[in-house]
């Protein structure tokens, strides 16, 4: 039971998210209706993804500073789980979108091109492409130390360029998402009812913790694998 309290917390928070998220009273927005409950899943995926990418970035810096191999493994695994969260975010977003943004006279396929210009979709696509390129770059190098160092450099460079892009792109394009140019809608205290915030914030923590948990398991698995290779 090594440091297991936060794992229990993650499970409790997620069970709470699923039960309360489906049962609580939600405000009746004429366009959103019951789909507003997707907030507890869709938005949390993006929070989780960004937090995991930040951890990956910090691990890359730590690797370059200390040269300890474990930080490289951690950086890679956090990036991997971050990509998973990003894909889940797209899937939950696509479900939500198909009830709210889609032009009901056209098929999903035909209306996709007008929706894909959405700034938040582009920002997320850039993030996912960067980390996919990171994985490609890693796999293309065979030498272990070299792989770790070069991919850490790319990780830092790309991450440092990613954040300005996420701030810039919403200025360039009109958005269907709430908030738009006026800051981060998820942290806006005027929006969303009190009831929803009671579920929303624990949900963010729960999803992020489960992401970190998956990543730590993968790191440990990778370490065991490498130790076996050494023998």
């Amino acid at each position, binding site marked *: 039971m090594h440091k297991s309290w936060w794992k229990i917390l993650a499970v409790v928070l997620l069970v709470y998210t699923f039960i309360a998220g489906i049962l609580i009273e939600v405000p009746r927005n004429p366009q959103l209706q019951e789909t507003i409950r997707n907030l507890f899943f869709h938005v949390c995926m993006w929070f989780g993804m960004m937090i995991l990418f930040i951890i990956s970035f910090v691990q890359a810096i730590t690797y370059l500073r200390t040269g300890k191999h474990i930080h490289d493994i951690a950086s890679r695994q956090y990036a991997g789980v971050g990509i998973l969260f990003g894909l889940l975010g797209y899937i939950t977003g696509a479900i939500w979108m198909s009830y709210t943004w889609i032009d009901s006279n056209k098929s999903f396929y035909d209306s996709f091109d007008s929706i894909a210009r959405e700034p938040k979709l582009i920002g997320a696509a*850039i993030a996912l492409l960067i980390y996919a390129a990171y994985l*490609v770059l890693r796999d293309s190098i065979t030498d272990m130390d*070299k792989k770790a160092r070069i991919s850490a450099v790319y990780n*830092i460079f*790309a991450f440092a360029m990613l954040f300005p892009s996420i701030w810039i792109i919403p200025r360039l394009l009109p958005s269907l998402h709430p908030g738009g140019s006026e800051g981060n809608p998820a942290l806006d205290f005027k929006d969303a009812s009190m009831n929803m915030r009671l579920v929303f914030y624990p949900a963010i923590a729960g999803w992020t913790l489960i992401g970190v948990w998956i990543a730590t398991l993968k790191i440990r698995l990778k370490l065991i694998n490498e130790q076996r290779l050494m023998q």
Partner: protein
Amino acid sequence: MKSVQHIYTLIKKDLLLEVRQQYSFYGILLYIMATIFVLYMTIQEPETKVWNGLFWVIQLFICINAVAKSFLQETRGRMLYFYSIVNPRDFVLAKLVFNSVLMLLMSFLSLFLFSLFLGNPIKKLPQFIGLVLLGGWSLSLVFTFLSAIAAKAQQNAAIMAILGFPIIIPQLMLLMQLANTVFSDKTAIAASTLLLIVMLDVLVIMLAVILFPFLWKE
């Protein structure tokens, strides 16, 4: 003062290499001409929006071809030699300066050929030339650093495109948005957007200077 001298010498070395091995320089020139000629064959007089989009995409590809070889051409032995005599910061700064100048030249040339073959819808030429030079500079900075990464990973220019495209999207979008204003007399270029591009360039230079020493170690 000493490092300025080093940078100057390194730039001179790159320039000399360029003069002595002219095939690569003419190769890029030919690439620009061939691409624009193919475009001319497929569409004669595009609309302004299409013109603008094509122009920047062509810039992107020219930049990859022009800048890719900067680190890829250095052999392992030569890198080892540089490693023993110069500071990595000076080395990367020299490369950045050299590639910027090269790319400014190429951007200017491709603008000339583009307006010659595909029609000239530009209403405010001086502003557009300024933008093209700024854009060429931004592209060259990002791709110079990525070329260093690609060279260290012993990969070809293809990986540069994979690594660079997601990073360059916002800058390209900003440039295209600014460039769209030069096709009419009414709208003015937004100074804040211009400043943003310059800030991003400064960020890239800073990151390159900080991160290159780690790439350089073997």
